[in-house]
């Protein structure tokens, strides 16, 4: 089984490590609650 989440265009800045692995066609093992990304609307205010 699989869950797919679709976000509106330009609404999320996905964590770079997840994107980098995916761009190598490599899945990343994750757990519930791990950070996925940040809303772009508040990106300028956020320093994580």
């Amino acid at each position, binding site marked *: *089984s*699989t*869950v*797919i*989440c*679709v*976000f*509106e*265009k330009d*609404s*999320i800045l*996905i*964590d770079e*490590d*997840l*994107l980098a*692995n*995916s*761009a*190598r*066609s*490599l*899945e*990343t*093992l*994750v*757990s*519930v*609650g*791990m*950070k*996925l*990304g*940040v*809303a772009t*609307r*508040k990106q300028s205010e*956020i320093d*994580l």
Partner: protein
Amino acid sequence: MGHASSKGLPDASEEDSSRLSRLKQKLHINRNHHHRQRLRRIFRRSHGNSSGSSGSCLKLVSAEDFAGIALLTLVSAEMKFKDKWLACVSLGEQTYRTEISDQTEKPVWNSEKKLLLERNGPHVARISVFETNRISKNNIVGYCEIDLLEFLTQDSDSDFEVFELFDPSSSDIVVGKISLSCSVEDPIETEKSFARRLLSIVDYNQDGRLSFSEFSDLIKAFGNQVAANKKEELFKAADKNGDGFVSMDELADLLAIQQEKEPLINCCPVCGEILGVSDRLNTVVHLSLCFDEGTGNEAMTGGFLTDKEASYGWMFKLSEWAHFSSYDVGLNFGSSASHILVFDRKTKRLVEELIDGKIVMSMRALYQSKIGLCLMDSGAKEILYKISEKQGRKMNSAESAEDIPKFVEFFKDQIKLDEVKYPLEHFKTFNDFFIRELKPGARPIAFIERDDVAICAADSRLMAFKNLEDSLRFWIKGRKFSIQGLLGKEICPSTFVDGALIIFRLAPQDYHRFHFPVSGIIDQFVNVPGNLYTVNPIAVNSEYCNVFTENKRVISIISTAEFGKVAFVAIGATMVGSITFLKKEGDYVNKGDEFGYFSFGG
């Protein structure tokens, strides 16, 4: 026994060639030594004494240990009234059936089936003809029994024979006639067709030849450690013309020659059965039949009505979930094991997820080949659904709870029992355990106070893409994939077109509850019925299969202040097709809250 009442006449112009062909076909079953010598001479004259695979077939197999593939064709029947007819052939424990004919007195099926004939195995085929117009069930009208070994050794010039059909309640009453033909497949053709099938399965780019890496996968799947260790050497030996690839003929030659001196194939890549090292013909026969099973190449279908039947074929091995019933995955890994590489975000290391080689082979055969596509069109979708429903019933039974300790032991490195909310005794069925809850705090939520930070929705293997184009470039190869296709017509896709796409794939051992990745209000749920293909990367990476847009799924839309709308798509898969939600439309939810779970069922 059946009574041949008339004979068909061959076309005069084809008589010579068809006689020679029949003689060759009967080569392996004739019990008369002198006659066999004569046949051997005919065979030599027509084929020469060439090297390679044809040469190796001059070695005769004695009738005592005969094993061969008989091609039985149910051609047509003449009945005494009009109906829609189907015919069944049973041999030993196997039963196959034709399609249903038109409404007629003279049904025509032309249905073929390859059957294994062994000297000490069953060889009397029972053929039954059913009328199908009854609403409640099919009704047997006539039957006959035919000794196939006897039939094949008869000296006949005809391509088919006609047998009387008897009333099942009285064998004195003839209710019709049936025409059928039966021939033994030429062993050379058996070997070639086997090589062709093998090649098509590992020939991932479908260029009709094997690269070294494709060849390596094949050798690994044979389960022979010795061969796996010297695959470079074998590849060079096979690649006779030195072009860096192994063609179908080169592969057939390698298998024929190598299997004689040092067998390559120790176990069947489809069913995993250990094969006798000294009996080459039986090996090829076994593999040919096993690879044919359920491919849709044959006109007659087996139906897979029972567990036993299903487990014989590769139908049951179409997903990594298959071992919930057998627990055989991983136990015989050896050189047949394959793996999927995954990057563990927590340990920042690459880890290998082992998956049984024969399952990889079967899944590739089904999801990444044109043969598989035909299979899907010929009823495999329904079978996947039935298997899943049946598995659901089984996993909801009290007896299934007995499997929990075995399952935990099997995945002992990956299931942390100290995280599970209740002790094992609490779970009354396997499904109960499968949808186990975790203790509070077992999954810390990142930046819990910040709703502008999204989190992972499931314990899973994740792929993330900024947009559809990237997802198609790096991962989803199904030709029909689109955001519109994924979300369906009911949900306005324009909001999501070109949006980011996150895929969470759950494996059998994972915690199977999914959580909210964002905080907001649930706007709506939309059920989309569909198939239950596997969601394994092998299927997702196949251009022939569109698992995400064709599988059964439920789409929910969450309205958030920080991300706008987020579509959450829960997709069922083979075996695990049941999707349950713990929230309803209009609920306000916090990121990290439980949203629902997947469980066994259709």
